[in-house]
Protein backbone atom coordinates (compact mmCIF):
# COMPACT_ATOMS: atom_id res chain seq x y z
CA UNK A 1 0.00 0.00 0.00
CA UNK A 2 1.34 3.40 -0.99
CA UNK A 3 0.04 6.65 0.47
CA UNK A 4 -0.64 9.60 -1.79
CA UNK A 5 2.50 11.70 -2.10
CA UNK A 6 2.71 15.46 -1.71
CA UNK A 7 2.50 17.71 -4.75
CA UNK A 8 5.96 17.90 -6.42
CA UNK A 9 6.56 21.55 -5.57
CA UNK A 10 5.59 21.07 -1.93
CA UNK A 11 7.53 17.82 -1.73
CA UNK A 12 10.67 19.55 -3.04
CA UNK A 13 10.37 22.40 -0.57
CA UNK A 14 9.80 20.04 2.36
CA UNK A 15 12.50 17.63 1.20
CA UNK A 16 15.17 20.33 1.00
CA UNK A 17 14.10 21.79 4.33
CA UNK A 18 14.44 18.33 5.89
CA UNK A 19 17.90 17.84 4.33
CA UNK A 20 19.25 21.23 5.33
CA UNK A 21 17.83 21.27 8.85
CA UNK A 22 18.95 17.66 9.34
CA UNK A 23 22.51 18.21 8.14
CA UNK A 24 22.97 21.42 10.11
CA UNK A 25 21.92 19.94 13.45
CA UNK A 26 23.08 16.35 12.83
CA UNK A 27 26.37 16.19 14.74
CA UNK A 28 25.07 18.34 17.61
CA UNK A 29 22.00 16.12 17.78
CA UNK A 30 24.15 13.00 17.80
CA UNK A 31 26.20 14.36 20.72
CA UNK A 32 22.99 15.28 22.56
CA UNK A 33 21.46 11.81 22.12
CA UNK A 34 24.68 9.90 22.82
CA UNK A 35 25.49 11.83 25.99
CA UNK A 36 21.83 11.84 27.01
CA UNK A 37 21.65 8.05 26.75
CA UNK A 38 24.67 7.69 29.05
CA UNK A 39 23.39 10.42 31.40
CA UNK A 40 20.24 8.41 32.06
CA UNK A 41 22.46 6.35 34.35
CA UNK A 42 24.18 9.32 35.99
CA UNK A 43 23.02 8.31 39.49
CA UNK A 44 23.56 4.59 38.94
CA UNK A 45 27.19 5.25 37.90
CA UNK A 46 28.02 7.32 40.97
CA UNK A 47 29.40 4.49 43.12
CA UNK A 48 31.62 3.36 40.27
CA UNK A 49 32.71 6.93 39.63
CA UNK A 50 33.54 7.71 43.26
CA UNK A 51 35.19 4.78 45.07
CA UNK A 52 34.77 6.69 48.36
CA UNK A 53 30.99 6.28 47.96
CA UNK A 54 31.11 2.49 47.81
CA UNK A 55 29.34 1.84 51.09
CA UNK A 56 25.83 0.70 51.86
CA UNK A 57 23.17 3.41 51.60
CA UNK A 58 21.55 4.45 54.85
CA UNK A 59 17.79 4.41 55.11
CA UNK A 60 16.88 7.99 54.13
CA UNK A 61 14.40 8.25 57.02
CA UNK A 62 17.16 7.58 59.57
CA UNK A 63 19.24 10.59 58.58
CA UNK A 64 19.34 13.73 60.71
CA UNK A 65 18.64 16.49 58.16
CA UNK A 66 18.92 19.24 60.76
CA UNK A 67 22.41 18.07 61.62
CA UNK A 68 23.32 18.10 57.92
CA UNK A 69 22.11 21.69 57.67
CA UNK A 70 24.13 22.59 60.77
CA UNK A 71 27.38 20.97 59.60
CA UNK A 72 27.09 22.64 56.19
CA UNK A 73 26.39 25.97 57.87
CA UNK A 74 29.49 25.52 60.04
CA UNK A 75 31.75 24.32 57.23
CA UNK A 76 30.78 26.53 54.28
CA UNK A 77 32.01 30.09 54.59
CA UNK A 78 29.36 32.81 54.04
CA UNK A 79 26.54 30.24 53.86
CA UNK A 80 23.29 32.20 53.61
CA UNK A 81 20.69 30.34 55.63
CA UNK A 82 17.83 32.55 54.39
CA UNK A 83 18.37 31.91 50.68
CA UNK A 84 16.82 28.72 49.45
CA UNK A 85 18.81 25.65 50.47
CA UNK A 86 17.90 22.02 50.04
CA UNK A 87 19.12 18.47 50.14
CA UNK A 88 18.54 15.33 48.12
CA UNK A 89 18.44 12.34 50.48
CA UNK A 90 20.60 9.30 49.65
CA UNK A 91 19.26 6.67 47.29
CA UNK A 92 20.18 3.04 46.63
CA UNK A 93 22.39 4.25 43.79
CA UNK A 94 24.05 7.20 45.54
CA UNK A 95 24.66 6.90 49.31
CA UNK A 96 25.65 10.57 49.81
CA UNK A 97 23.37 13.51 50.59
CA UNK A 98 23.54 16.19 47.90
CA UNK A 99 23.25 19.66 49.41
CA UNK A 100 22.46 22.82 47.43
CA UNK A 101 22.78 26.28 48.96
CA UNK A 102 23.84 29.88 48.47
CA UNK A 103 26.77 31.88 49.77
CA UNK A 104 26.57 35.63 50.30
CA UNK A 105 29.72 37.61 50.91
CA UNK A 106 30.14 40.92 52.74
CA UNK A 107 29.47 42.88 49.54
CA UNK A 108 26.16 41.08 49.12
CA UNK A 109 27.28 39.02 46.14
CA UNK A 110 25.51 35.67 46.05
CA UNK A 111 26.64 32.40 44.50
CA UNK A 112 24.99 28.99 44.38
CA UNK A 113 26.95 25.97 45.54
CA UNK A 114 26.53 22.21 45.64
CA UNK A 115 28.29 19.79 47.94
CA UNK A 116 28.04 16.20 49.11
CA UNK A 117 27.63 15.21 52.76
CA UNK A 118 28.45 11.75 54.02
CA UNK A 119 25.40 10.72 56.11
CA UNK A 120 27.48 8.28 58.19
CA UNK A 121 30.24 10.65 59.26
CA UNK A 122 28.54 13.99 58.45
CA UNK A 123 31.70 15.00 56.64
CA UNK A 124 31.11 17.87 54.22
CA UNK A 125 32.97 17.78 50.90
CA UNK A 126 34.43 21.08 49.62
CA UNK A 127 31.72 23.15 47.90
CA UNK A 128 31.78 23.28 44.10
CA UNK A 129 34.98 21.22 44.06
CA UNK A 130 33.78 17.67 43.55
CA UNK A 131 36.42 14.96 43.51
CA UNK A 132 34.60 13.26 40.69
CA UNK A 133 32.66 14.92 37.91
CA UNK A 134 32.65 12.23 35.21
CA UNK A 135 28.91 11.60 34.83
CA UNK A 136 28.16 15.30 35.28
CA UNK A 137 30.61 16.18 32.52
CA UNK A 138 28.76 13.85 30.15
CA UNK A 139 25.41 15.17 31.37
CA UNK A 140 26.52 18.78 30.90
CA UNK A 141 27.81 17.98 27.41
CA UNK A 142 24.30 16.66 26.73
CA UNK A 143 23.05 20.27 26.76
CA UNK A 144 26.36 21.97 25.84
CA UNK A 145 26.74 23.49 29.27
CA UNK A 146 30.50 23.75 28.66
CA UNK A 147 29.79 26.57 26.17
CA UNK A 148 29.38 29.65 28.38
CA UNK A 149 26.01 31.47 28.45
CA UNK A 150 24.62 30.27 25.10
CA UNK A 151 25.30 26.52 25.43
CA UNK A 152 21.92 25.53 26.80
CA UNK A 153 20.09 27.77 24.33
CA UNK A 154 22.03 26.19 21.48
CA UNK A 155 20.95 22.74 22.70
CA UNK A 156 17.37 24.02 22.91
CA UNK A 157 17.54 25.37 19.38
CA UNK A 158 18.93 22.03 18.15
CA UNK A 159 15.96 20.31 19.82
CA UNK A 160 13.61 22.81 18.24
CA UNK A 161 15.11 22.26 14.78
CA UNK A 162 14.94 18.53 15.45
CA UNK A 163 11.19 18.91 15.85
CA UNK A 164 11.18 20.73 12.54
CA UNK A 165 13.27 17.96 10.92
CA UNK A 166 10.88 15.30 12.28
CA UNK A 167 7.80 16.99 10.84
CA UNK A 168 9.43 17.63 7.44
CA UNK A 169 10.85 14.08 7.51
CA UNK A 170 7.38 12.58 7.98
CA UNK A 171 6.04 14.72 5.12
CA UNK A 172 9.00 13.88 2.86
CA UNK A 173 8.78 10.12 3.37
CA UNK A 174 4.99 10.12 3.74
CA UNK A 175 4.24 8.04 0.63
CA UNK A 176 6.68 5.28 1.71
CA UNK A 177 5.74 5.05 5.35
CA UNK A 178 3.39 2.07 4.99
CA UNK A 179 5.22 0.07 2.32
CA UNK A 180 8.63 0.61 3.91
CA UNK A 181 7.50 0.22 7.52
CA UNK A 182 9.41 -3.08 7.80
CA UNK A 183 11.88 -2.03 5.10
CA UNK A 184 15.15 -2.36 7.03
CA UNK A 185 17.37 -4.48 4.83
CA UNK A 186 21.05 -5.28 4.38
CA UNK A 187 20.73 -5.99 0.66
CA UNK A 188 21.17 -3.76 -2.35
CA UNK A 189 23.07 -0.55 -2.85
CA UNK A 190 24.23 1.51 0.11
CA UNK A 191 21.90 4.39 -0.74
CA UNK A 192 18.97 1.99 -0.61
CA UNK A 193 20.17 0.45 2.67
CA UNK A 194 20.59 3.87 4.33
CA UNK A 195 17.28 5.19 2.95
CA UNK A 196 15.24 2.15 3.95
CA UNK A 197 16.66 2.01 7.45
CA UNK A 198 16.29 5.78 7.91
CA UNK A 199 12.61 5.66 6.91
CA UNK A 200 11.75 2.42 8.68
CA UNK A 201 13.50 3.01 12.03
CA UNK A 202 12.78 6.73 11.91
CA UNK A 203 9.07 6.13 11.61
CA UNK A 204 8.95 3.35 14.23
CA UNK A 205 10.87 5.45 16.78
CA UNK A 206 8.97 8.63 15.85
CA UNK A 207 7.06 9.03 19.16
CA UNK A 208 10.32 8.68 21.13
CA UNK A 209 12.03 11.32 19.03
CA UNK A 210 9.02 13.62 19.13
CA UNK A 211 8.97 13.42 22.92
CA UNK A 212 12.65 14.36 23.10
CA UNK A 213 12.35 17.18 20.58
CA UNK A 214 9.46 18.75 22.52
CA UNK A 215 10.76 18.16 26.05
CA UNK A 216 14.34 19.09 25.10
CA UNK A 217 13.21 22.37 23.56
CA UNK A 218 10.97 23.07 26.54
CA UNK A 219 13.67 22.40 29.14
CA UNK A 220 16.36 24.44 27.39
CA UNK A 221 14.23 27.22 25.94
CA UNK A 222 11.59 27.41 28.66
CA UNK A 223 11.68 31.22 28.78
CA UNK A 224 11.16 31.57 25.03
CA UNK A 225 8.49 28.88 24.86
CA UNK A 226 6.58 30.01 27.93
CA UNK A 227 6.50 33.66 26.87
CA UNK A 228 3.83 33.18 24.13
CA UNK A 229 1.67 31.16 26.56
CA UNK A 230 1.93 33.97 29.10
CA UNK A 231 0.78 36.48 26.50
CA UNK A 232 -2.16 34.35 25.36
CA UNK A 233 -3.33 33.01 28.70
CA UNK A 234 -2.26 35.58 31.30
CA UNK A 235 -2.07 38.90 29.43
CA UNK A 236 1.71 38.79 29.40
CA UNK A 237 2.12 38.13 33.13
CA UNK A 238 4.83 35.43 33.20
CA UNK A 239 4.75 35.15 36.99
CA UNK A 240 1.10 34.00 36.84
CA UNK A 241 2.05 31.37 34.30
CA UNK A 242 4.97 30.19 36.41
CA UNK A 243 2.70 29.98 39.45
CA UNK A 244 0.25 27.86 37.45
CA UNK A 245 3.01 25.48 36.32
CA UNK A 246 5.09 25.50 39.52
CA UNK A 247 2.91 26.70 42.43
CA UNK A 248 5.87 27.10 44.79
CA UNK A 249 7.25 29.90 42.60
CA UNK A 250 4.15 31.92 43.47
CA UNK A 251 5.27 32.40 47.07
CA UNK A 252 6.79 35.79 47.72
CA UNK A 253 9.31 35.96 50.54
CA UNK A 254 10.06 39.20 52.26
CA UNK A 255 13.80 39.68 52.87
CA UNK A 256 12.90 42.16 55.60
CA UNK A 257 10.51 39.78 57.39
CA UNK A 258 10.77 39.51 61.16
CA UNK A 259 13.52 37.26 62.47
CA UNK A 260 12.26 34.37 64.60
CA UNK A 261 14.17 32.90 67.50
CA UNK A 262 12.70 29.42 67.29
CA UNK A 263 14.18 26.95 64.80
CA UNK A 264 12.06 24.70 62.64
CA UNK A 265 12.84 21.00 62.66
CA UNK A 266 13.50 19.70 59.14
CA UNK A 267 13.28 16.10 60.34
CA UNK A 268 9.69 16.64 61.52
CA UNK A 269 8.65 17.85 58.07
CA UNK A 270 10.44 14.88 56.49
CA UNK A 271 8.53 12.40 58.72
CA UNK A 272 5.21 14.17 58.14
CA UNK A 273 5.56 13.93 54.35
CA UNK A 274 6.88 10.38 54.53
CA UNK A 275 3.94 9.32 56.70
CA UNK A 276 1.49 10.84 54.23
CA UNK A 277 3.24 9.10 51.28
CA UNK A 278 4.61 5.76 52.44
CA UNK A 279 5.01 4.42 48.88
CA UNK A 280 6.87 7.48 47.59
CA UNK A 281 10.41 8.63 48.20
CA UNK A 282 11.30 12.15 49.22
CA UNK A 283 13.60 13.36 46.47
CA UNK A 284 14.28 16.89 47.71
CA UNK A 285 13.78 18.67 51.03
CA UNK A 286 14.24 22.44 50.91
CA UNK A 287 13.60 25.62 52.77
CA UNK A 288 13.42 29.34 52.02
CA UNK A 289 13.79 32.26 54.46
CA UNK A 290 14.69 29.70 57.10
CA UNK A 291 15.01 32.05 60.08
CA UNK A 292 12.28 34.52 59.06
CA UNK A 293 8.62 34.74 59.89
CA UNK A 294 7.43 33.76 56.38
CA UNK A 295 9.71 30.74 56.10
CA UNK A 296 8.59 27.58 54.36
CA UNK A 297 9.90 24.03 54.24
CA UNK A 298 8.94 21.96 51.20
CA UNK A 299 9.40 18.36 50.15
CA UNK A 300 9.25 16.87 46.67
CA UNK A 301 8.17 13.25 46.42
CA UNK A 302 8.29 10.69 43.64
CA UNK A 303 7.14 7.08 43.43
CA UNK A 304 9.37 6.52 40.32
CA UNK A 305 6.52 4.39 38.94
CA UNK A 306 3.72 6.55 37.57
CA UNK A 307 4.24 9.18 34.91
CA UNK A 308 2.48 11.68 37.18
CA UNK A 309 3.81 10.14 40.40
CA UNK A 310 5.64 13.23 41.61
CA UNK A 311 4.25 15.43 44.39
CA UNK A 312 5.04 18.57 46.35
CA UNK A 313 4.24 19.52 49.96
CA UNK A 314 4.84 23.06 51.17
CA UNK A 315 4.68 23.70 54.91
CA UNK A 316 4.70 26.99 56.73
CA UNK A 317 7.66 26.67 59.02
CA UNK A 318 6.13 29.23 61.41
CA UNK A 319 3.34 26.98 62.65
CA UNK A 320 3.95 23.74 60.74
CA UNK A 321 0.70 24.17 58.74
CA UNK A 322 0.45 22.61 55.28
CA UNK A 323 0.21 25.59 52.91
CA UNK A 324 -0.06 23.82 49.59
CA UNK A 325 0.16 20.34 48.21
CA UNK A 326 0.38 18.77 44.78
CA UNK A 327 -0.98 15.33 45.40
CA UNK A 328 0.16 12.80 42.75
CA UNK A 329 -3.38 11.33 42.70
CA UNK A 330 -5.27 14.61 42.40
CA UNK A 331 -3.30 16.77 40.02
CA UNK A 332 -4.77 19.39 37.76
CA UNK A 333 -3.54 19.69 34.17
CA UNK A 334 -1.67 22.92 35.00
CA UNK A 335 0.31 21.50 37.90
CA UNK A 336 0.88 18.08 36.37
CA UNK A 337 1.92 18.92 32.79
CA UNK A 338 5.43 20.19 33.47
CA UNK A 339 6.21 17.24 35.78
CA UNK A 340 5.04 14.75 33.14
CA UNK A 341 7.28 16.35 30.51
CA UNK A 342 10.26 16.24 32.86
CA UNK A 343 9.58 12.59 33.70
CA UNK A 344 9.25 11.72 30.02
CA UNK A 345 12.64 13.35 29.39
CA UNK A 346 14.51 11.77 32.32
CA UNK A 347 12.77 8.37 32.19
CA UNK A 348 11.87 8.73 35.88
CA UNK A 349 8.91 6.36 35.73
CA UNK A 350 8.21 2.67 35.28
CA UNK A 351 11.20 1.67 37.44
CA UNK A 352 14.72 1.00 36.17
CA UNK A 353 13.43 -1.08 33.26
CA UNK A 354 12.27 1.92 31.25
CA UNK A 355 15.78 3.41 31.37
CA UNK A 356 17.15 0.38 29.51
CA UNK A 357 14.50 0.86 26.81
CA UNK A 358 15.30 4.57 26.59
CA UNK A 359 19.05 3.90 26.39
CA UNK A 360 18.76 1.49 23.45
CA UNK A 361 16.22 3.72 21.69
CA UNK A 362 18.56 6.71 22.07
CA UNK A 363 21.37 4.69 20.50
CA UNK A 364 19.04 3.66 17.64
CA UNK A 365 18.26 7.37 17.19
CA UNK A 366 22.02 7.99 16.86
CA UNK A 367 22.00 5.43 14.03
CA UNK A 368 19.03 7.16 12.39
CA UNK A 369 20.93 10.47 12.50
CA UNK A 370 24.02 8.87 10.93
CA UNK A 371 21.95 7.13 8.26
CA UNK A 372 20.44 10.50 7.33
CA UNK A 373 23.90 11.95 6.74
CA UNK A 374 24.92 8.86 4.77
CA UNK A 375 21.84 9.23 2.53
CA UNK A 376 22.90 12.82 1.90
CA UNK A 377 26.42 11.69 0.97
CA UNK A 378 25.52 8.68 -1.20
CA UNK A 379 22.82 10.65 -3.05
CA UNK A 380 25.53 13.12 -4.08
CA UNK A 381 28.18 10.59 -4.97
CA UNK A 382 27.41 10.38 -8.70
CA UNK A 383 28.31 11.94 -12.03
CA UNK A 384 25.71 14.71 -11.70
CA UNK A 385 28.16 16.42 -9.35
CA UNK A 386 31.61 17.72 -10.20
CA UNK A 387 34.68 16.17 -8.63
CA UNK A 388 35.12 19.24 -6.49
CA UNK A 389 31.57 18.98 -5.16
CA UNK A 390 31.93 15.26 -4.50
CA UNK A 391 35.15 15.85 -2.59
CA UNK A 392 33.41 18.50 -0.52
CA UNK A 393 30.53 16.11 0.31
CA UNK A 394 33.06 13.43 1.21
CA UNK A 395 35.03 15.75 3.48
CA UNK A 396 31.89 16.98 5.28
CA UNK A 397 30.73 13.38 5.85
CA UNK A 398 34.17 12.29 7.05
CA UNK A 399 34.39 15.24 9.44
CA UNK A 400 30.90 14.50 10.74
CA UNK A 401 31.63 10.79 11.19
CA UNK A 402 34.94 11.51 12.91
CA UNK A 403 33.29 13.81 15.48
CA UNK A 404 30.39 11.51 16.22
CA UNK A 405 31.91 8.02 16.06
CA UNK A 406 34.94 9.07 18.13
CA UNK A 407 32.57 9.70 21.03
CA UNK A 408 32.55 5.97 21.78
CA UNK A 409 36.32 5.65 22.47
CA UNK A 410 36.29 9.10 24.13
CA UNK A 411 33.58 7.91 26.51
CA UNK A 412 35.62 4.84 27.42
CA UNK A 413 38.60 7.17 27.90
CA UNK A 414 36.83 9.34 30.49
CA UNK A 415 35.90 6.22 32.48
CA UNK A 416 39.53 5.07 32.39
CA UNK A 417 40.82 8.53 33.30
CA UNK A 418 38.35 8.84 36.16
CA UNK A 419 39.36 5.56 37.76
CA UNK A 420 43.11 5.92 37.21
CA UNK A 421 43.67 9.50 38.47
CA UNK A 422 44.18 9.25 42.28
CA UNK A 423 41.29 10.56 44.39
CA UNK A 424 43.52 12.96 46.36
CA UNK A 425 45.11 14.45 43.25
CA UNK A 426 44.60 18.25 43.26
CA UNK A 427 41.91 19.41 40.80
CA UNK A 428 41.39 15.85 39.61
CA UNK A 429 37.95 16.62 38.11
CA UNK A 430 39.52 19.21 35.80
CA UNK A 431 42.27 16.78 34.84
CA UNK A 432 39.77 14.03 34.00
CA UNK A 433 37.70 16.50 31.95
CA UNK A 434 40.82 17.66 30.12
CA UNK A 435 41.75 14.05 29.27
CA UNK A 436 38.23 13.49 27.92
CA UNK A 437 37.96 16.61 25.79
CA UNK A 438 41.54 16.49 24.50
CA UNK A 439 41.20 12.75 23.88
CA UNK A 440 38.00 13.35 21.92
CA UNK A 441 39.71 16.08 19.89
CA UNK A 442 42.73 13.86 19.13
CA UNK A 443 40.51 10.93 18.19
CA UNK A 444 38.53 13.21 15.85
CA UNK A 445 41.72 14.47 14.20
CA UNK A 446 42.94 10.88 13.87
CA UNK A 447 39.68 9.98 12.12
CA UNK A 448 40.28 12.62 9.46
CA UNK A 449 43.23 10.55 8.22
CA UNK A 450 41.02 7.53 7.54
CA UNK A 451 39.56 8.14 4.12
CA UNK A 452 37.25 5.16 3.97
CA UNK A 453 34.06 5.23 6.05
CA UNK A 454 34.22 1.50 6.79
CA UNK A 455 37.81 1.82 7.99
CA UNK A 456 36.88 4.85 10.07
CA UNK A 457 33.95 3.08 11.71
CA UNK A 458 35.91 -0.12 12.32
CA UNK A 459 38.91 1.68 13.82
CA UNK A 460 36.77 3.64 16.25
CA UNK A 461 34.93 0.47 17.28
CA UNK A 462 38.23 -1.36 17.79
CA UNK A 463 39.73 1.55 19.77
CA UNK A 464 36.60 1.99 21.86
CA UNK A 465 36.24 -1.75 22.49
CA UNK A 466 39.88 -2.11 23.58
CA UNK A 467 39.48 0.78 26.02
CA UNK A 468 36.14 -0.67 27.15
CA UNK A 469 37.70 -4.02 28.05
CA UNK A 470 40.34 -2.15 30.07
CA UNK A 471 37.74 -0.37 32.22
CA UNK A 472 36.78 -3.26 34.55
CA UNK A 473 40.46 -4.22 34.75
CA UNK A 474 41.43 -0.66 35.73
CA UNK A 475 38.67 -0.60 38.34
CA UNK A 476 40.00 -3.83 39.84
CA UNK A 477 43.57 -2.63 39.70
CA UNK A 478 43.07 0.81 41.27
CA UNK A 479 40.28 0.10 43.76
CA UNK A 480 40.70 -3.64 44.27
CA UNK A 481 36.99 -4.04 43.42
CA UNK A 482 37.30 -6.78 40.83
CA UNK A 483 34.24 -7.98 38.95
CA UNK A 484 33.77 -11.16 41.00
CA UNK A 485 34.33 -9.26 44.27
CA UNK A 486 31.68 -6.64 43.54
CA UNK A 487 29.23 -9.39 42.60
CA UNK A 488 29.93 -11.36 45.78
CA UNK A 489 29.78 -8.21 47.94
CA UNK A 490 26.44 -7.27 46.37
CA UNK A 491 27.86 -4.00 44.97
CA UNK A 492 25.43 -4.25 42.09
CA UNK A 493 25.91 -0.74 40.71
CA UNK A 494 29.70 -1.08 40.47
CA UNK A 495 29.36 -4.58 39.04
CA UNK A 496 26.79 -3.46 36.44
CA UNK A 497 29.07 -0.70 35.11
CA UNK A 498 32.04 -3.07 34.82
CA UNK A 499 30.02 -5.85 33.19
CA UNK A 500 28.36 -3.47 30.74
CA UNK A 501 31.73 -2.14 29.58
CA UNK A 502 33.18 -5.64 29.36
CA UNK A 503 30.26 -6.84 27.21
CA UNK A 504 30.43 -3.74 25.01
CA UNK A 505 34.17 -4.27 24.54
CA UNK A 506 33.92 -7.99 23.75
CA UNK A 507 30.99 -7.54 21.34
CA UNK A 508 32.71 -4.57 19.69
CA UNK A 509 35.84 -6.61 19.06
CA UNK A 510 33.82 -9.57 17.74
CA UNK A 511 31.81 -7.33 15.43
CA UNK A 512 34.94 -5.65 14.08
CA UNK A 513 36.65 -9.01 13.56
CA UNK A 514 33.80 -10.89 11.89
CA UNK A 515 31.86 -8.13 10.12
CA UNK A 516 33.82 -4.96 9.64
CA UNK A 517 37.11 -6.56 8.58
CA UNK A 518 35.56 -8.01 5.42
CA UNK A 519 36.07 -5.91 2.33
CA UNK A 520 32.90 -4.73 0.69
CA UNK A 521 32.82 -3.11 -2.72
CA UNK A 522 30.02 -0.68 -2.00
CA UNK A 523 31.59 0.65 1.16
CA UNK A 524 34.06 2.88 -0.66
CA UNK A 525 32.84 6.42 -0.79
CA UNK A 526 33.92 7.25 -4.30
Amino acid at each position, binding site marked *: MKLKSLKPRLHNAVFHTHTVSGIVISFALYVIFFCGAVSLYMNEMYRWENPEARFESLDASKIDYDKIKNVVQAKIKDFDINSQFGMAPPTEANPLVLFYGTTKNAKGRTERFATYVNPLTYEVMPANEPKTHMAHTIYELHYFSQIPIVGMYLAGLVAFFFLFAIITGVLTHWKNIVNKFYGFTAKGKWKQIWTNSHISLGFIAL*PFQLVYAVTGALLCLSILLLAPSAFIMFNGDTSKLLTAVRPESGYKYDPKARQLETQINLNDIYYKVKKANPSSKITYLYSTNFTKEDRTVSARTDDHKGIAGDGLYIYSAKDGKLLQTINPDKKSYNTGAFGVLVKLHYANYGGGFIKILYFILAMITCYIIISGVMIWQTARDNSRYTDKQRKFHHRVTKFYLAITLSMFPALALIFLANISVPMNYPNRAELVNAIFFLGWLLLTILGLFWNNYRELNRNYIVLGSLLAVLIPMANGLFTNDWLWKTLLNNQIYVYAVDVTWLLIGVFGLLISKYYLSKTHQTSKPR
Partner: protein
Amino acid sequence: MIFALVIIGSFLLYNTSKYFPAELFPIIGKFNASKFLLKISGSLCLMLSLILSGLQFGWGTGFVIFLTALMLGLCLTLMTLPLNRLLVYVMTIVCVVLIVAENLI
Protein backbone atom coordinates in the same frame (compact mmCIF):
# COMPACT_ATOMS: atom_id res chain seq x y z
CA MET B 1 6.24 -10.25 30.38
CA ILE B 2 5.31 -6.91 28.78
CA PHE B 3 8.49 -6.85 26.71
CA ALA B 4 8.41 -10.59 25.90
CA LEU B 5 4.90 -10.23 24.45
CA VAL B 6 5.95 -7.17 22.46
CA ILE B 7 8.89 -9.07 20.97
CA ILE B 8 6.72 -12.08 20.04
CA GLY B 9 4.05 -9.77 18.58
CA SER B 10 6.65 -7.81 16.58
CA PHE B 11 8.16 -11.02 15.24
CA LEU B 12 4.77 -12.39 14.14
CA LEU B 13 3.78 -9.14 12.47
CA TYR B 14 7.18 -8.84 10.78
CA ASN B 15 6.54 -12.32 9.38
CA THR B 16 3.72 -10.91 7.28
CA SER B 17 6.03 -8.43 5.57
CA LYS B 18 7.74 -8.95 2.20
CA TYR B 19 10.97 -7.81 3.87
CA PHE B 20 10.99 -10.75 6.31
CA PRO B 21 14.17 -12.78 5.59
CA ALA B 22 12.38 -16.12 5.16
CA GLU B 23 15.51 -17.76 3.69
CA LEU B 24 17.27 -17.35 7.06
CA PHE B 25 14.44 -19.07 8.91
CA PRO B 26 13.36 -22.08 6.82
CA ILE B 27 11.70 -23.66 9.85
CA ILE B 28 9.11 -20.88 9.90
CA GLY B 29 8.22 -21.54 6.27
CA LYS B 30 7.29 -25.13 7.17
CA PHE B 31 4.39 -23.95 9.33
CA ASN B 32 2.88 -22.28 6.29
CA ALA B 33 0.75 -20.08 8.51
CA SER B 34 -1.58 -17.67 6.76
CA LYS B 35 -0.79 -13.96 6.92
CA PHE B 36 -4.19 -13.31 8.42
CA LEU B 37 -3.51 -15.71 11.29
CA LEU B 38 -0.08 -14.17 11.87
CA LYS B 39 -1.54 -10.68 11.94
CA ILE B 40 -4.27 -11.69 14.37
CA SER B 41 -1.91 -13.55 16.73
CA GLY B 42 0.72 -10.77 16.55
CA SER B 43 -1.88 -8.11 17.30
CA LEU B 44 -3.27 -10.22 20.16
CA CYS B 45 0.20 -10.44 21.72
CA LEU B 46 0.57 -6.67 21.52
CA MET B 47 -2.91 -6.15 22.91
CA LEU B 48 -2.17 -8.46 25.83
CA SER B 49 1.08 -6.61 26.48
CA LEU B 50 -0.79 -3.29 26.57
CA ILE B 51 -3.36 -4.69 29.01
CA LEU B 52 -0.62 -6.10 31.27
CA SER B 53 1.24 -2.81 31.19
CA GLY B 54 -1.95 -0.90 32.00
CA LEU B 55 -2.80 -3.18 34.90
CA GLN B 56 0.72 -2.99 36.32
CA PHE B 57 1.41 0.75 36.01
CA GLY B 58 -2.02 2.36 35.50
CA TRP B 59 -3.45 3.10 32.07
CA GLY B 60 -1.65 6.38 31.34
CA THR B 61 1.81 5.26 32.38
CA GLY B 62 1.10 1.75 31.06
CA PHE B 63 0.35 3.10 27.59
CA VAL B 64 3.58 5.12 27.49
CA ILE B 65 5.62 2.12 28.67
CA PHE B 66 3.91 -0.13 26.13
CA LEU B 67 4.58 2.36 23.35
CA THR B 68 8.26 2.61 24.34
CA ALA B 69 8.56 -1.18 24.51
CA LEU B 70 6.81 -1.51 21.14
CA MET B 71 9.17 0.98 19.48
CA LEU B 72 12.19 -0.85 20.83
CA GLY B 73 10.77 -4.32 20.09
CA LEU B 74 10.04 -3.43 16.47
CA CYS B 75 13.40 -1.71 15.98
CA LEU B 76 15.35 -4.64 17.44
CA THR B 77 13.39 -7.20 15.41
CA LEU B 78 13.92 -5.28 12.20
CA MET B 79 17.58 -4.53 12.83
CA THR B 80 18.78 -7.96 13.87
CA LEU B 81 16.81 -10.50 11.83
CA PRO B 82 17.80 -9.40 8.30
CA LEU B 83 21.50 -9.16 9.09
CA ASN B 84 22.44 -12.63 10.18
CA ARG B 85 20.81 -15.68 11.74
CA LEU B 86 23.46 -15.66 14.47
CA LEU B 87 22.22 -12.27 15.59
CA VAL B 88 18.94 -13.90 16.55
CA TYR B 89 20.80 -15.56 19.41
CA VAL B 90 22.27 -12.21 20.42
CA MET B 91 18.84 -10.68 20.30
CA THR B 92 17.43 -13.55 22.34
CA ILE B 93 20.06 -12.84 25.02
CA VAL B 94 19.22 -9.10 24.93
CA CYS B 95 15.52 -9.92 25.27
CA VAL B 96 16.14 -12.32 28.18
CA VAL B 97 18.21 -9.62 29.92
CA LEU B 98 15.41 -7.09 29.35
CA ILE B 99 12.77 -9.52 30.62
CA VAL B 100 14.85 -10.25 33.74
CA ALA B 101 15.40 -6.51 34.20
CA GLU B 102 11.67 -5.87 33.81
CA ASN B 103 10.94 -8.23 36.68
CA LEU B 104 13.89 -7.38 38.91
CA ILE B 105 14.36 -3.61 38.74
